[in-house]
């Protein structure tokens, strides 16, 4: 009996040591900036979304959401619930409750789930852990004064399938 009493605190501490880090890892995994889209009609109508998640000193979570295409920036969420690898995030927009329900993948780099606006059917949502664009290194941006440089590059890349996109940056 005395042996059990001596061993119990050791076992208890060992159990605590084994469990606590895994709990912390699951929660820490959501902290940061997440960028992706709500796939209203996959491949066609995909609404860009950014969510910034931060755990408060007391343990509660705070989230701020951007939906830039519809002019929503730094929109605070009313409720963030995180349990292990699951997240439920709720906020109100134009009087309708928006609910994101997602799961963090094993690598801690992707949240996949659904996004539901009010009573409408849920749409898939996909978010990746990404640094803010202003914090990313600049990619090379070549200057074009007309079609000539593009034509040269296009012909230099002969032998490859080529896709030309003409876009507005905003």
């Amino acid at each position: 009996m005395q042996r059990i009493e001596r061993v119990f605190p050791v076992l208890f501490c060992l159990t605590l040591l084994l469990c606590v880090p895994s709990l912390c890892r699951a929660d820490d995994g959501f902290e940061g900036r997440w960028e992706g889209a709500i796939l209203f009609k996959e491949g066609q109508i995909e609404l860009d979304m950014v969510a910034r998640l931060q755990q408060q000193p007391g343990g509660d979570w705070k989230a701020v959401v951007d939906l830039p295409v519809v002019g929503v920036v730094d929109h605070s969420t009313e409720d963030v619930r995180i349990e292990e690898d699951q997240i439920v995030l709720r906020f109100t927009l134009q009087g309708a409750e928006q609910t994101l329900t997602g799961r963090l993948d094993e690598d801690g780099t992707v949240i996949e789930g659904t996004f539901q606006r009010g009573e409408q059917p849920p749409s898939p949502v996909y978010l990746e852990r990404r640094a803010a664009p202003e914090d990313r290194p600049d990619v090379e941006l070549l200057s074009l004064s007309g079609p000539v440089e593009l034509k040269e590059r296009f012909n230099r890349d002969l032998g490859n399938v080529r896709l030309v996109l003409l876009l507005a940056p905003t």
Partner: protein
Amino acid sequence: MGSRVVARHVLQKIDHEDLRVYMVWLPILDGDDREAAQRSANRIAEPRVTHYWGSDLELTETFKAPIGLEEGKAWDIFVLYDDDTVWGGEVPRPSSFMHQRLPLPEERTLDARELAREVRSLLPE
């Protein structure tokens, strides 16, 4: 928005090295300047992608004929070429194209999953 849809469905899902993508950012809307183009480009950092900033809208005219656009400017377009097309005097006729919000056939409205299928069909096994 179209650029990131293409990035998600074409670039992230097709890792073939014989694909080149030219993203030409143009001053179409208010606020479209080189800085905005740089921010948009930074969102799609991929070795097969070359980003350009076009300071004028000449390309929006030169790409009208190949896609059959009669009015307005050719922008928000996604123009696909096979591996042996040469750009000679004029912009060549593409294998296929897609668009957003242009007065062009509705069935060619951007569907990045379909675009990815068309890209795959042109790539060698």
